[in-house]
């Protein structure tokens, strides 16, 4: 059998190897290759030796292809001062271990006007996808580089519907639904009444994606005055809009029929004065108010009640769990000004436990040290984010 290919032709060698040298002969090399003396007896070795030479050319590949297109637009410059190094380190800790403090942290960064290290944008934008509560602050903190990143590639399109750092009237003229929604979102931050007016005036002409975005804004900033308008939307031509409007109208109606949420401090005082003190009713009330800042006097009332509760040995066992939950809630939501009071109580507790002190019986069994640790964490977190000095 005669083959007319050159010995060592890479494609030919590959096709021989595929079916095996038992079925197809190997072309003999003209000169001695590596191991030629042994190889001359065994077609398999001949093939491997020839392949070793030819494979090099295949493996070295081709020079990189030329790039012909235009480079993508680079990220815009961010004039804000960079986040201080300790705060960047703390963000890592927050993301890994204390995600519950992220909203407070983001709000403080936004207030101070710092720029985030870019490497944190992807994980934060991922969190914003599921956590609507942080979106406003996240959009402000991510700033124009964040919007650029989302537009350049990434699955975080929601960010484009959030307010820009400055209201741009041209956004309201834009055909892009995201731009129009972002404009109204920005208007809500500066002039809510104007935002509501704008929604009502232009509603009829809007397309469905814009309408859905505006409905989301109406439900983010609920206002009873919107109710009659929202009720008219229940007859909108789009089913999606109808469904969303029905949901929003229902929630506004429920809020209208329910009494105003009570003043935090007064309600805590009322529940503590009741026969049960630290009990289920107090716990239920306090847990509905987590995630919002508490007044200092109300937080202090709760703290004192918890310390007193810890001193008494005759409490039913189930209140221990409630007391623990309340402790964490106080540490997470109280103004950090409460920290000094807790520190003083910790010192008192240490004194009571010291030899020669009043002894264990006088000391509260409440875990003040853990509370202090959380409050310290929040205090340091906020202190690191003091606005930069110019």
């Amino acid at each position, binding site marked *: 059998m005669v083959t007319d290919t050159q010995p060592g032709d890479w494609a030919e060698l590959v096709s021989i190897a595929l079916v095996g040298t038992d079925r197809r002969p190997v072309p003999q090399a003209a000169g001695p290759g590596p191991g030629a003396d042994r190889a001359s007896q065994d077609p398999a070795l001949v093939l491997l030796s020839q392949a070793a030479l030819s494979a090099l050319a295949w493996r070295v590949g081709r020079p990189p292809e030329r790039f012909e297109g235009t480079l993508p637009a680079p990220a815009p410059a961010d004039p804000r001062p960079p986040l201080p190094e300790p705060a960047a380190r703390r963000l890592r800790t927050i993301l*890994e271990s204390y995600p519950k403090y992220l909203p407070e942290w983001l709000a403080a960064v936004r207030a101070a006007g710092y720029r985030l290290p870019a490497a944190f944008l992807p994980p934060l934008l991922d969190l914003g996808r599921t956590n609507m509560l942080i979106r406003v602050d996240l959009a402000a903190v991510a700033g124009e580089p964040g919007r650029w990143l989302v537009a350049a*590639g990434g699955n975080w399109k929601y960010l484009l519907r959030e307010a820009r750092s400055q209201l741009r009237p041209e956004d309201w003229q834009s055909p892009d639904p995201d731009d129009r929604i972002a404009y109204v979102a920005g208007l809500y931050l500066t002039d809510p009444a104007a935002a509501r007016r704008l929604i009502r005036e232009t509603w009829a002409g809007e397309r469905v994606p814009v309408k859905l975005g505006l409905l989301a804004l109406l439900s983010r900033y609920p206002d009873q005055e919107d109710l009659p308008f929202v009720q008219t939307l229940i007859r909108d031509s789009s089913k999606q809009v109808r469904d969303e409007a029905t949901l929003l109208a229902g929630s506004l109606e429920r809020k209208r029929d329910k009494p105003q949420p009570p003043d935090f401090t007064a309600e805590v005082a009322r529940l503590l004065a009741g026969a049960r003190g630290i009990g289920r009713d107090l716990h239920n009330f306090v847990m509905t108010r987590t995630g919002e800042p508490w007044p200092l006097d109300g937080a202090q009332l709760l703290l004192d009640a918890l310390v007193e509760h810890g001193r008494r040995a005759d409490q039913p066992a189930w209140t221990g769990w409630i007391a623990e939950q309340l402790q964490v809630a106080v540490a997470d939501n109280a103004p950090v000004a409460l920290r000094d009071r807790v520190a003083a109580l910790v010192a008192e507790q240490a004194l009571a436990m010291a030899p020669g002190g009043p002894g264990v019986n006088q000391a509260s069994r409440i875990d003040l040290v853990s509370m202090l640790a959380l409050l310290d964490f929040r205090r340091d977190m906020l202190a690191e984010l003091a606005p930069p000095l110019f």
Partner: protein
Amino acid sequence: MAGTIDPAAAQRWSADRVHALAPDASSQRAGAKLAAPGPWSGCGAQSAAGLLWGDCKGSGAKPYQVTVELSAEQGTPGYACSCPSRKFPCKHALGLMLLWSAGGVPEAEEPPQRVQDWLDARRERAERSEARKAAAAQRAAGEGEDADPAAGRKAAEAAERRAAQRIQRIDAGLDDLELWLCDQVRSGLTGLRAAGYRPIDDLARRLIDAQAGALATRVRELTHCLNAPEDWPERTLAEFSLLHLLIQGWRNRDALPAPLAATVRRRIGLTMAAAEIAEVGEHASGRWLVLGCRDLAADKLVERRVWLQRETDGRIAMLLAFAPPGQAFGIALPAGAVVEAELAFAPDAVPLRAVLVEHRVVENAVVENTVVERTALSQNPESVGEGPQGGTLDEAAAGFAAALAADPWTAAVPVVLDGAVPLVGPKPEDWQIVDAKGGGRVPLLASADGADPTRAERLCQTLLACGGAHPAPLFGLYRPAGLTPITIWNNGQAASLW
């Protein structure tokens, strides 16, 4: 913001450097959680001596007592903690170091008694092990009159016998491999592909028995070649021919130039110990920029690779460290740090692997005529605002070709691009790296070299976010199939992508 200048602050490690000591990601997280002052009491530090101590409140009644010594002269850092964790360093030690790194541990004059006791014990242990090493060296060199000549000869003979035995085993293993390769080529690669991983796994096991570990790993990777979707016949035959070439190289190793022979030995699995590299390798000192760091989990060990670039000439070196999962690495060098160090390069056709050599102390004190060599790490990383020195993609391709010509088994070469821009694709596999200076483009390989494919998307996103699509210096591993990015610089700031 001007603050008071704190002399201890300069001696404190950066948080990144502490994080690099963590044995694994979960310890890193747990340590970060403890890096708040809350659970700590009785903390103190002597930053100049790299000594830290403190009590950490745990779940039990008694707080855990933690001590850390980071001094450079001891080489590897030392940790002690009364907690029962088997992680080393444990989360308490990491938390204390992070707290210290953030300036949360006050400087103290005198360490408490327990710390002093621990230090003394540690010193004593170090001295004992030095003395043992010296005694061993004396025995090894003890062909002189004063040592026991018979014992020395016996030990040398035993070592020689072991080495000869290993060579014999490798010879037999390679004969076995050659036979196997020929069988497959005779009956056709299609049959091997259909047979699954089993025959390859059996062969790899036999090669491990033959003490040719690196070769066994190479053989295992044949499964990747066989499973490649498109060009599997080419890739498999290429890998077959490389194995064949390695067998030839081993048999003719005495005729090869010394560096190439060293490459063959390494590729078979006869690695050189760090001490030997320090002795015979080519030394190079200067200021080195840490280009990047990657940890790869292998069977029972985690392998850490750290690439350095010399500031004067751009030469790249790679440090290797191994640690069992959950244990600390000896080297903790974050990307972007600068090290003043003397390195020794392992002999190789393309010298890349190196070991850190701080200084060479010739001690004649212990026993006369006995040379004791002590190698230790010299790590004084400082943060700098300068990026690495890079080139173009075309230069990277030329560099790969040159490396392949010198060492035909080269898989990838470390390269620095001067102006890289990521080009976004719909999926991580579709992204590309464009060289804004040289005009080339290559695919971005986000999940090559055993990297976690689920992290590929995050790697692409981080690359885009950190570089901002500005042409930026990028360090990575180049192969003709594409580039695996490891570190990107933006305004002189290094961002690690792993």
